[in-house]
């Protein structure tokens, strides 16, 4: 059976709202409009306006309200139309949500989920394309999840809603319409994935590729191409950026001895940098080649199609990087 990421998210919301009356959804256009990207389709009808709340365009205010409701023990799901708008509310995410359990020595826990599309969409320009994975994963007190497939989307969203701590749930607009095969187990309403565990999407022995969200698909395509050239790449879907599954990453690198990190966000202080550090900290002596980082270009996202394509990693960038770490690089200008 196949399922789109959109349906995976929608069904996870539906099931968790049905299972726990303290779960509610708030955000812009989540109700009557059925969600700007239709993730919350049907939920207003089913759960009514007390549990599916259309908010004004006031992120700081409604995020603060969500966090306050979580202080009181409700389980809010706050949708940002895109994560770019979470910057208006970021003080509440960091100072009001992430730090409260610590400051109160465990008195005020904050079981809340912040979710919405993150990172580059298509043609939406500099203010609507930023990836916030590295920022949020920098901060203790938060958990940061980055689903790729329908299975990830269902299992991780359910885990996030059930989790007692604040969770940042970073979706990808371009994946919403993508279909993935799903097993009966994944479709079961009890299905849930563990937070903090990566998934080996494809086993390999020559090189490890770590990535998350949409880039998992690109890495898998690259691995397919590379396999035809005799390079066996192991693709790790991180699923969780915080906690980061250092054990899985290091185990893979100890096997393959080579690493390429792939991310769509800005490079400096990004996901790749942290993974590099964690491998240097734990598996330095296993590395047979320098680690390669593939990241978004270090520029605001341009609108023009050709520039945008250069600004985000492409499959052939991954292929080339893998060849470089495997010392099979071809000269720069003459690549396929």
């Amino acid at each position: 059976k196949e399922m789109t990421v959109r349906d995976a998210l929608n069904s996870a919301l539906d099931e968790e709202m049905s299972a726990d009356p303290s779960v509610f959804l708030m955000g812009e256009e989540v109700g009557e409009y059925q969600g700007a990207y239709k993730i919350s389709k049907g939920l207003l009808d089913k759960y009514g306006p007390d549990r599916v709340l259309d908010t004004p365009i006031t992120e700081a205010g409604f995020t603060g309200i969500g966090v306050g409701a979580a202080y009181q023990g409700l389980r809010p799901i706050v949708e940002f139309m895109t994560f770019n708008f979470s910057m208006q509310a970021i003080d509440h995410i960091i100072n009001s949500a992430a730090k409260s359990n610590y400051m109160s020595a465990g008195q005020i826990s904050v079981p809340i989920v912040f979710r919405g599309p993150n990172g580059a969409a298509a043609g939406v320009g500099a203010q609507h394309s930023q990836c916030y994975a590295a920022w949020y994963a920098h901060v203790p007190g938060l958990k940061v999840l980055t689903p790729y497939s329908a299975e990830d989307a269902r299992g991780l969203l359910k885990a996030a809603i059930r989790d007692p701590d604040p969770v940042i749930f970073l979706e990808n607009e371009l994946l919403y319409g993508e279909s993935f095969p799903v097993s009966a187990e994944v479709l079961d309403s009890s299905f849930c994935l563990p937070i903090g565990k990566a998934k080996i999407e494809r086993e390999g022995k020559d090189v490890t590729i770590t990535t998350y969200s949409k880039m998992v698909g690109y890495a898998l395509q690259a691995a397919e191409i590379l396999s035809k050239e005799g390079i066996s790449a192991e693709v790790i879907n991180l699923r969780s950026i915080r906690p980061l599954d250092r054990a899985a990453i290091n185990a893979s690198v100890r096997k393959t001895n080579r690493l390429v990190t792939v991310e769509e966000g800005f490079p400096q202080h990004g996901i790749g940098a942290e993974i590099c550090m964690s491998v240097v900290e734990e598996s330095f002596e296993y590395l047979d080649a320098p680690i390669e980082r593939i990241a978004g270009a270090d520029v605001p996202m341009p609108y023009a199609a050709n520039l945008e394509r250069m600004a985000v990693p492409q499959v052939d960038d991954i292929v080339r990087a893998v060849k470089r770490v495997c010392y099979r690089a071809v000269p720069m200008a003459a690549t396929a």
Partner: protein
Amino acid sequence: DSTDAITVETSAPFKSHIVDPPSRSATTSARELLSFFRDMSLMRRAEIAADSLYKAKLIRGFCHLYDGQEAVAVGMEAAVTRADAIITAYRDHCAYLARGGDLVAAFAELMGRRDGCSRGKGGSMHFYKRDANFFGGHGIVGAQVPLGCGIAFAQRYRKEGTVTFDLYGDGAANQGQLFEALNMAALWKLPVILVCENNHYGMGTAEWRASKSPAYYKRGDYVPGLKVDGMDVLAVKQACKFAKDHVLENGPIILEMDTYRYHGHSMSDPGSTYRTRGEIAGIRQERDPIERVRKLILAHDFATAQELKDMEKEIRKQVDAAIAKAKESPMPDPSELFTNVYVNDCGLEVSRPHLVLRIGPRIAELEWAKMNK
């Protein structure tokens, strides 16, 4: 002659909040009315053409059309000079045109081409015309409000005697940063006019669902406000003239423009799930800003119906020609990816080996493809 002053009553009296409203009698002329007709018709046509270009996949991403709201951009422009500043949100194509923006540059930007007003790097939401004091084109709801107050701050700082028109929507009107900026604007007597373009919906949310009090002209509390028929270009002009004088003397004022967007919010919104087709048709019928001016022109015999039709045909040709020209504009040069990140990059460019490794070959490829085409 065509510049002789005539007096026209605005559609309705201005409603006001802690200020005496201006008179309903607006002064205009044949020349001005004809230019209003031409400018608004051009905007209307350009937006409809953008709609088609979007459907033909020549415009990507978001695209927020302004048709229905033309009287606000045009009436405002008639009240000010280009030394005064304007800043708005993402629904910015017509604000750009009103400031004298080039039609080819507008379409080229929409299509991400090198002759675009932001050289293809900004896109639909990020039009600017710095030389005419048009400061964009902002994608984050509400953000332009403090930014506009900052522009007014600079105008006052430099004792320029100019003002800033700071546009935002009914949805944006609830943003906290507006109230923060307004307080400072009032404390510092900044020459800023907050123009709330109330088109009655923020995306799919009707004003009353988003605002406990949708009387936006009163929402400044201690700041005066006027409610203006934003479908009546003369009312807009009258209010903006009044407001400009007011703010130079007294600090900020709010103008709520009662207007309407015919299209959906952006291209993915059919615009008909949260409002009835009847509502849209009724407004087109009774309040359309272009038709209002057409009637005035005809009533005063400033032109014949046929002359106006001809003008519209002319405009259509002008728009088509601009589009054709814009389509010929090439994509930006690949090197543009890395320009304008900084004015002075302090050597950052050379310190990004991972990007050279990744993007270098692709730029090389593109150069090669260009040479072999």
